[in-house]
């Protein structure tokens, strides 16, 4: 196991971000290997606004877990697509800023999340 610095960002639940960062690294390493890349300089991610991850904690953990790997020092470019839900009373798609928020139109909590939970690697920059 690669060593991980012991001082994570204060007051964040940083631990599962380590596992997510390791998952991220394995996706990046597999993609780099497919293209015979010896170096990954940028990783473009989509982390939905409702996703179960703290982007800054992920950034911190990614820097830690990538040491000695093909992605050491790689920049993380994180896009944050907004949350989108289906409001059952309205019968329409509505914006959702966070889980537990009401429909901005009718105030109902009968919301089915449609988008904003994704955690995807979109592209990597190699070379």
């Amino acid at each position: 196991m690669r060593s991980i610095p012991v001082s994570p960002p204060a007051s964040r639940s940083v631990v599962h971000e380590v596992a997510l960062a390791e998952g991220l690294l394995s996706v990046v390493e597999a993609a780099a290997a497919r293209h015979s890349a010896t170096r990954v300089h940028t990783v473009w991610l989509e982390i939905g606004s409702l996703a179960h991850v703290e982007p800054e904690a992920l950034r911190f953990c990614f820097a830690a877990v990538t040491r000695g790997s093909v992605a050491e020092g790689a920049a993380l470019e994180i896009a944050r697509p907004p949350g989108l839900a289906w409001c059952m009373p309205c019968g329409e798609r509505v914006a959702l800023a966070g889980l537990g928020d009401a429909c901005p139109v009718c105030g109902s909590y009968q919301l089915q999340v449609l988008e904003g939970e994704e955690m995807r690697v979109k592209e990597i920059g190699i070379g």
Partner: protein
Amino acid sequence: MCTTCGCGHGDTRIDGAALGHEHDHGKPDLRTDTTTAAGAAVYRHLSVGATQPHRHADGTWHSHAHEHAGAPARVASGPLGAAHAPGMSASRIVQVEQDILAQNNAYAAANRQAFADCGIFALNLVSSPGSGKTTLLVRTIDALRDRMSACVIEGDQQTSLDAERIRATGARAVQVNTGKGCHLDAHMVGHAFASLDPHDCDLLLIENVGNLVCPAAFDLGEAHKVVILSVTEGDDKPLKYPDMFHAADLMVINKVDLLPHVEFDVDRAIANARRVRPDLPALHVSATTGEGIADWTAWIEAGCAAARAAHDADVARLRRRVSELEAKLATDSPRA
């Protein structure tokens, strides 16, 4: 981190033994781009400011902002910048389009298939530490003892105390110690399940690490996540930790025998949970007194019956197929 398959938690232990990698465990295939056809990588020249004139290593200057494969030109913000020096390959961007949890999800899918192959109903029990998960499991196994066989995967950072409590009921149990890990992942559960020899079991209860945050993100292959909320914790927990309640398919409110002594509003807890997971069913139980346990075991038995029926239908379908193939072999075989 394991350098063979990339899984995390190098200090994970199953019943005290390290999770080694001298075995073949069917590594999920992450080699295939999901949305990019083979060989269709998007190649783009990158430069620091694509339209800025720049000097190449051969001393010539020019400016360019061109691209390949029809993708919009974009300037990489990575540290490489222009990579036009002789002997260096041009920097390029390749599409990946993969979930960060792709590897965990592949293991979870394999677990789900393994559970289906055994006709097992699998539940992932999640809660804060101290909500009474293990006591509820012991009570559940006792209540179902005459009707079905249960096995348990216990997740804790340290000790095998919980697995020992479960084994005292006579049920098979395996302890996963996650070390510094704050949740079970699908890879650990796959190994633990294999070690249980579960083929005659109807029910698999996976007790996750006590933590209302991290286990929400990890599919283990279970049929349902069940969140346990005890009345000593506060009815605002679903709003403070929405991801977990959002991910759950059932909420079990435990320790209801203590309701007279605490300021916990059951209706408000349910309303809060339904703000993040509309229509979340809720059961009221006391693992200590047995109140409400019959409703909980009835819910489990319905799930087990459905899992068994699906398994039986699958076996019947395979038997029919075997008969068809045998009949075909009998008619098509060359005669001696």
